[in-house]
């Protein structure tokens, strides 16, 4: 039985311009949570992750009553953050919060349709920290016109994604120019350096954490462990294709090829080209390698 549980909540206040995730601007459908409760296996779970959409739009109590895990993350939107909610989550056993901040620029936040200012997000994060030590944020790089300096709010974890124009997103349907690759990579490097000064180190292509605060749920997914996905728009990874272990190349722990001799020739080639390093049978991305990881993985599929 999978030891990792992912539950998806596909409901949002409104649709953000860049978003192509499975979520809709709508109230939660009645009975959504109860329905998931009925599908819950007995457990136990090593990691639980509530993602969205916006999990906090639902009354999570029935799940909080049922579940427990050493790492239990809930994604929050800054507008979700109230003492009452945080108390409930904490009492229910949640121990990790990931808040989608996306930008420190009020103009960009408005453009994205996020519905808060940077100062409001900062206050929300401070409040979260009163209840949760393990708290982090998500940021987007490369949004048109975006410009900000990274502030230190006391993050334990930060995820940094570059904007992708997905055809199914609002932005994807508009024809706006987005910054070029060089500019985006420069931004990512600046942010990585700033995070490094704050003591957060990059442990995966788009994830940074203080020592010991790496997201174990995501690591499990990247390492090819099984996970159960519940809720509309969630996928399960059960009896996973062993090849999916290749995704661990995304992490600083690297890809162990003991069981995959067929990948070594290609990977060795990229070692020669300076994209990877090799220790024993474990391959790791160099900093140039992180920029082109997908196309290396595509050669292994």
């Amino acid at each position, binding site marked *: 039985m999978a030891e990792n549980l*992912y539950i998806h909540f596909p409901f949002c206040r409104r649709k953000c311009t860049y978003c192509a995730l499975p979520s809709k601007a709508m109230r939660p459908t009645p009975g959504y949570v109860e329905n998931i409760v009925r599908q819950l296996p007995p457990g136990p779970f090593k990691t639980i992750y509530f993602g969205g959409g916006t999990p906090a739009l639902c009354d999570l109590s029935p799940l909080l009553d049922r579940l427990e895990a050493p790492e239990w993350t809930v994604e929050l939107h800054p507008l979700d953050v109230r003492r009452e909610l945080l108390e409930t989550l904490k009492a229910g056993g949640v121990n990790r919060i990931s808040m989608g901040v996306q930008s420190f620029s009020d103009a960009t936040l408005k453009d994205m349709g996020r519905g808060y200012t940077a100062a409001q997000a900062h206050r929300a994060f401070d409040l979260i920290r009163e209840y949760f030590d393990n708290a982090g944020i998500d940021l987007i790089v490369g949004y048109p016109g975006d410009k900000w300096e990274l502030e230190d709010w006391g993050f334990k974890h930060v995820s940094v994604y570059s904007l992708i124009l997905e055809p199914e997103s609002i932005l994807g349907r508009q024809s706006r120019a987005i910054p070029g690759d060089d500019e985006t990579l420069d931004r990512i490097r600046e942010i990585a350096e700033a995070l490094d000064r704050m003591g957060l180190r990059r442990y995966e292509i788009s994830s940074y954490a203080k020592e010991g605060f790496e997201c174990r749920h995501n690591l499990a997914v*990247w390492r090819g462990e099984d996970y159960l996905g519940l809720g509309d*728009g969630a996928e399960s*990874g059960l009896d996973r294709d062993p*090849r999916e272990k290749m995704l661990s190349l995304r992490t600083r722990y690297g890809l162990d090829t003991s069981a995959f001799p067929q990948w070594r020739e290609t990977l060795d080639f990229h070692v020669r080209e300076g994209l990877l390093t090799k220790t024993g049978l474990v391959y790791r991305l160099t900093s140039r390698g992180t920029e082109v990881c*997908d196309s290396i993985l595509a050669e292994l*599929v």
Partner: protein
Amino acid sequence: MRRGGGSAEQVMATLENIRNFCIIAHVDHGKTTLSDRILELTHAVSQRELKEQTLDAMDLERERGITIKSHPVSMEYEAKDGKKYLFNLLDTPGHVDFAYEVSRSMGACEGALLVVDAAQGVEAQTVANTYFAQDAKLEIVPVLNKVDLPGANVPEVSREIEDILAIPMDDPLLVSAKTGQGCEAVLEAIVQRIPPPETRGIDAPLRALVFDSVFDEFRGVITYVRVVDGSLKAGQSVVFMGSRVTTAVHEVGIFSPNKKPVEKLEAGQVGYIVGTVKDPSEIKIGDTVTTAKLGADDPLPGFHDIHPTVFCGIYPMSTDEFQKVEQGLEKLHLNDSAFTFHHESSLALGFGFRCGFLGLLHMEIVQERLRREFGLDIITTSPGVIYKLKMKDGEERELDNPLQMPDPSALETISEPILKARIITPSESIGDVMRIVMDRRGFVEGTETIDQKRVMLHCKLPLNEILIDFHDTLKSVSHGYASMDYEPAGYQVSDIVKMDILLNGETVDAFATMVHRDKARSRGIQMCKALSEAIPPHQFKIPVQAAIGKEIIAREDIRPFRKDVLAKLYGGDVTRKMKVLEKQKRGKARMKEFGHVNVPQSAFIAVLKGTIKE
């Protein structure tokens, strides 16, 4: 019956009123358009079916506006003398590469309409095709076409025809195939001036000349014949005298212009045979068909063998399609016996074929037909010629594939094929034309004045040098006016070397070419440039180098791309991610991988065409 003509099978043809003729000319002088008028005037094709260039049936022909295959068509004409005549017309291609199609068509004819554009005058292929027709002892009827054009100069062009071709122009046919002006007179001239077929008789033993054949998915091989003696009908058993293949005849028919079954074909007629032959390679163009019982003893003269001059490798894009490509080549070969193919293999491309063609256009057309008519996904390597090698140990051999080039230290000499070319050009471009001939390692042996405005250059040129864009360059320096015709003129010792191309430090054998040492550097730079533009950026820098032996003579780098998308990857997204990766991978399946460098098909084309205009 309507006056003027009708469907051809109604004519009970007696030899006296059969006229077999072809239409020959330089490219674009209006052969196919004149055929349209003839079809129209004889009502062989209804007004509804008649479109421009009706006989150019292949998509490829219609798109390019050129004739590639000869097209036979039969029709009836009621002449002014009140008699009905059976016309068998063969429209022919004008391009020099297809000269063999023209000469084969001539074997089925007694006469030729020589079409000359009255605004352009005599051009290189006009001269060449006239020589062919004279060799084939055809009655040549000159037709001045396009007299509707303001630039038409009838007296001048008539004089050219008399002076250069030695054809009397006492009673010139002045025609506009476009407007129809003068076309009736052409029909009358065909009756008056082209002789009826000669034969040993309708009751003599059957002899029919195979001048073409096509492969039909359902009916197998369809053979096009000109019946010279005797007659032929369904139910008979016939034998191909050269190959000794025997077949029952299921159907005989004529071209009107689509294939139409008839009861029998008689001496003098042109038509087709459907038999039991399924294997294209069993039929040889130029063979003679006779009856299995009481057949003829002596075959017809046939055609002399044609030898390909230009070679390239053809490989399946994906290695498991080797057999499909082989079958495609076999079937196409029936329709175009002028190209050759045999197995070869390359480290880079796997198993494929070395194919020989009559020229570059011929090569392009064959490749294009393989793609279209057989849906084949193929890769082709740079065209080359046959070199003659003399080894130090005295051995002599031929080389049609750079991969088989022996170590230079074992070589005494290499010889390359030379062409004798006739170039007709406006006098004001003569300097530029001479310059490009010299640039291509050729020389001008002599010049001849055609009229006040034009000269004919007699040149010698290495075949190797005209493989790449010579024709385009010639057209461009002469503002489109120069025309060229050529024929093989033996071999000549030359300093030819093998040039390799390296991608990311590894030799890719499929890109190897033979070049003259003096040309190696510029050709190397050109190939590296073309490749570096056609190969998409990878995660790493890719040097593209040209080398002779160990010496690098040119280099271009392909800069790496900057980044992939750095997307969020959470649990729910793994399956999607894997799908995206697989899709990315499939995208590359359309490319060939050489030492981790993915090379798209377009790169091969870029190398073939890759010319950098100075």
